[in-house]
Every structure is written in C-alpha cells, then in structure tokens.
C-alpha cells in the first residue's frame, strides 16, 4: 500500500507527536467525572445536593430534637434556648422538622422524576424509532395525558389511593411522562436518520442495541435538563398538594406543608423563622439540582471543552 505511512491529513502530525496524554488511558467515566468537577457551578450544585441527601439520610443523627415533640409554641430562634430556628405553633423544633422534611421532599422529587423519565424515555424511543401506528398510538396517548388538568387528576388519584408518600410519588410519576416522551421522540426521529445509525443497521446490530446504545445516548441531554427542572416542580407540587390537604399528612413534615402551616398573616409578618427556612431549603434544593443538570449537559457533550 502506498500510503501506509501514518499521518497524511495534515493536522495529525501535531497531535500524535506529542506523547499520548495519560488522560487517554482513563476510562470514559473518570474523564466525565473530572470534567464535571471542573465545571464550577456543577461541582457546587453536586456538593449542595450531596449535603441535602446526607442530611436526609442521617436525619435522626443530626436533628437536635424529636420533630414531633411538643413544647412551648412560637418560641423565636435563639442560640441559648436550644431551638436554633425556634418552634412552630405546636411548639415543635423547626430545625428538626426541616431536617426530617428533606427526606420527604427529596424522595418525592427524585422518585417521581425517576419514574416518569423511565416511562417517557421508553414510550418516546419506541414511538420515534418504529413510527407508523405505534407512533400515532403513543402520541395520542401523550396528548390525552397532557390535556388532563394536572393537579385535579393528582388530587383524584391521591384521594383514591390514599395520601401516602409512596402514592404521591406514584401519582406524580405516572402523570409527568408525556413531556419527556415528546422530547425523546423528537430526538429519536432526527437521530435515526443519521448515517451512523444506517451504518449500524448495515453492520448487523440488533434493534435494541441501535435504539438504546446508539440513538438514546444522543438524545438524552435535553431530557436531563428537563428532569432536573422536574425534580424542582415535583417538590413544589408536593407543597401544593399539602396545601390542599392531599399531600404528606401531618404530623410528618415536608418543606411544602411547613410553608403551608406558616401562611397566617401574623406568622408571615411576625414570625419569619417559620417560613424563611423551608423556603430557603426549597430554593437551595432546586438550584443545586438545576446547576447539576446544566453541568451534566455540558459534560456529556463530547464537544465541550475538556
């Protein structure tokens, strides 16, 4: 062969004469992780979220009081009295309730989104790849689901199934998938026409291999961003449900129902320690998750800076 000599296209001479960087020897995940942490906001988001998760996990060890123990009501926060964030109308320690509430709110957010991303991805991928009547059927089903008055249906489902944490997660998860299905379907429709997918068919790959290993990784990025927002929305929806009496039932605390309990005028104007901390927690959780989503999206794009 005449041009067995390696390097012919001009620019390769530069890249290959430099010794192979050690980074090239790493596995893909290591490099992904390194790039993720180099992304400052994403790193911050991850650390915040990890702290929240640890807090939820080790709530009994961290909480200074029993979240259900009743004492003198409406004590303001103080360093000396023991109640760092004061007490609520039943005299329960706000800080302890805040810590326990993170368990409820985070599991609602993550659980519901995990369920609906899984359903939406499967429906969207199958609809987009196979097309035809399967696609029509799946898309009409998403239209039907999208036309439901969201909160009403959740209210009905929760009241039929009973307002437990698991049922709330299930209800949110079963209703959230249409937007994910549409995102995935659109992506699959465009990616399946790409020549590397045609090449995969020509190479004799099975349909599941093509769909899940070649097409899906190329359409997941927008879903990831959608999912991070979804966690935030689920946390807030749980709060609304609590407000309507269909959320996590008292005395169990969630950030949402703590806010709801604090909505009397006198509390809003005179006792900010009852509503500022849970609001802050929701904001911190939502922001940290969104930062992570942004970072993940940038990192998962192989064209991003390394």
């Amino acid at each position, binding site marked *: *062969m005449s041009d*067995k000599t390696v390097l012919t296209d*001009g620019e390769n001479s530069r890249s*290959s004469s430099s010794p192979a960087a050690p980074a090239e020897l790493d596995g893909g995940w290591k490099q992904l992780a390194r790039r993720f942490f180099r992304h400052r906001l994403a790193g911050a988001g991850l650390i915040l979220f990890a702290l929240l998760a640890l807090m939820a996990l080790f709530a009994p060890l961290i909480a200074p009081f029993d979240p259900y123990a009743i004492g003198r009501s409406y004590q303001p926060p103080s360093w000396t009295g023991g109640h760092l964030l004061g007490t609520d109308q039943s005299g329960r320690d706000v800080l302890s309730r805040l810590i326990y509430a993170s368990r409820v709110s985070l599991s609602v957010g993550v659980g519901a989104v995990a369920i609906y991303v899984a359903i939406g991805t499967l429906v969207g991928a199958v609809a987009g790849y196979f097309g035809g009547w399967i696609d029509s059927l799946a898309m009409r089903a998403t239209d039907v689901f999208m036309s439901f008055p969201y909160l009403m249906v959740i209210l009905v489902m929760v009241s039929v199934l009973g307002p437990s944490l698991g049922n709330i997660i299930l209800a949110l998860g079963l209703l959230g998938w249409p937007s994910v299905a549409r995102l995935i379907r659109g992506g699959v429709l465009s990616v399946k026409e790409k020549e590397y997918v045609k090449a995969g068919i*020509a190479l*004799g790959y099975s349909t599941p291999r093509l769909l899940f290993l070649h097409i899906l*990784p190329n359409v997941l990025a927008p879903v990831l961003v959608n999912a991070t927002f979804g966690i935030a929305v689920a946390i807030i929806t749980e709060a609304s449900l609590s407000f309507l009496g269909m959320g996590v039932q008292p005395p169990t605390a969630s950030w949402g129902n703590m806010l709801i309990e604090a909505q009397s005028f006198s509390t809003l104007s005179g006792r900010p320690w009852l509503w500022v901390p849970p609001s802050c927690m929701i904001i911190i959780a939502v922001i940290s998750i969104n930062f992570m989503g942004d970072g993940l999206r940038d990192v998962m794009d192989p064209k991003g800076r390394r």
Partner: protein
Amino acid sequence: MGGHHDSERNGGPLLKVDGLKKHYPVRSGLFGRNTGQVKAVDGVSFRLEQGRTLGIIGESGSGKSTMGRLILQLEKPTEGGVTFQGRELTGMTERQLRPMRTDMQIVFQDPYSSLNPRKRVGDQLGEPIRVHRLLEGAAVEKRVQELLEIVGLSGHYRNRFPHEFSGGQRQRIGIARALALNPKLIVCDEPVSALDVSIQAQILNLLKDLQGELGLTYLFIAHGLGAVDYISDEIGVMYLGKLVEIGDSARLFGSPRHPYTAALLASNPPGSPHDRRREESVLQGDIPSPLHPPAGCRFHTRCPYAQKRCGTEEPVLTGEGSHKVACHYPLH
C-alpha cells in the same frame, strides 16, 4: 488491480441486481391519501463481478444513493431482486440478513454524520467485531489498532472522539469501520464528495490500495466524474431512476453513446486550459421531477437530439457485449 478470476467460485457474479425499483408513496391532505409515487429507482439491472469496481454516476436526484441503500437492504425495494453471493436478499427478514451483513458494507458521503459523536473511535470499530463474535477479548483491541493503521491512522486514535478528527480522517475511520467485518462488497456512497480536493485523492488512493490488498468489490456512487473514472472498471450512468448507459470505463468515457452521458462528460471541467472544448452540449434546465417523469425516454425533454419517437416510446437498455445503452438514436 482486481481480476475476474474469482467469479467462477460461486458460479456467478458477486452481486446481481434485477429490475430493482423503489417507489415512495406521496401522501397529502388530512387523511394522508396516496396521491402519487416518487419513482426514485425504477427498474435497474446489472451485474458486478468479484474484485471489480462499478462506478455509478448521475445528477442529484437520479436515485443512485437510494439504489446503494436498496442493495444493502437498508431500505426495502418495492420490486426487483438483489442476489448477493448467490443468495436472494430481498425476501429476507432483518434477522436472516444479519449474518449476511458481514460481507457487505457501506461508506457514507458525510463524514460528519456517519460516526456516532458519543462513542470513542475504538469502540465504534470494535463493536461490530464483538457483536458478530469474530474475535474476543484483547484480540479485538489488536484488530481495532490494525484497522486504524490499515487506513493510515495512528493506533492511538482509538481513544478519541469523532469531533477530534478532520473530515478526511473521519472518512478514513468510516472506511475502517466498513472493513471491520472483512466484507467482500463495499458500497461507497459518494465517499469523497464532501472532502477537499487534495484529500479526495488520498481517500481514492486508499480505496484503490485496499481493493488490491483485500480483493474488495466496490459499487462506487459519485457525481464527480473524475473520481469515478479513476477508480472504476465499469461505469453506469443513471438518469431519473433508470440506468441509461453502462459499459467499460475507458470505452464509455472515450465514446459515450447516450446523449446524456455525452452531456455529462462535456460539462466536466477540463483538466487543463489547453483541453478546453467549444461548448457543444451543455444541458439546459433541471432534472424533471421523479414524481412525474416524462413519458417515453425520460431524457427527451433535455435531449438535443430528441425525435418524435422519444416522447412516446421508452427505450430499453441494449447493446452487444458489455457496453449497453438505452437510447433510440445512440451516438456513434
């Protein structure tokens, strides 16, 4: 370059295409009624012997790329047969086709769309080998390295992502992927059209060298006449889904018999200013819509020599020997 000595082994040509057709339904209106058909490929037949190269040329929209995909069963033909290594492919299910696919591969036109942007080059080259269990374990890595070196790239590149390469390098990777399963036939779907002229020559040389080394058979689709002339033993000219002329490369270029072939050759810019000819038969107008192809000879609307008969009667591809033409009044 490649000989004909292998043709007897299977008792026939490597690839036989008979009356291949692909009609796309056109749907319109609220209920998607069938309102017509685009006849992208409309009755193409030819044979391709092992080790040879058949070049296919034609304007955009002549159906040449569709034909390449039909042969590989990436799209199902409407009608007609594709016989590869003595086996009829058209009736087969995808499952039946899968083991056959190791013997026929494709190199695409656009090197930016033909590689998966999220997979390392080494994984993309190793995956087909693993899927078909041709090799296992460390042997796969070795083969990937070897494939990269065969196409003139460094073996280190296996850990890189496609975006780290230039167009020419990507096309080399695309060729390496097509070679991964040791195919007999490679459909080259305009493999150099998207590349710089200087790099086109490198890729063409690479393809030619590989053919000599590995005994490959090519179906080389192109609209650039230069590339086809250089690499092909035989050339087929397509117009609106039909083969209008086919024959030995030198003879077809030396003395084209179909007016369309002559016009294509005349529109090719000469290699040197001294070769400049007087403008004889530059084609006027665009290729007609394949939705409503002209009656009779499809070329008669643009043909400088068209007669009355051309508008009514469709010519058949005939001729003595290997040089065949579909024209009522062939040149020469």
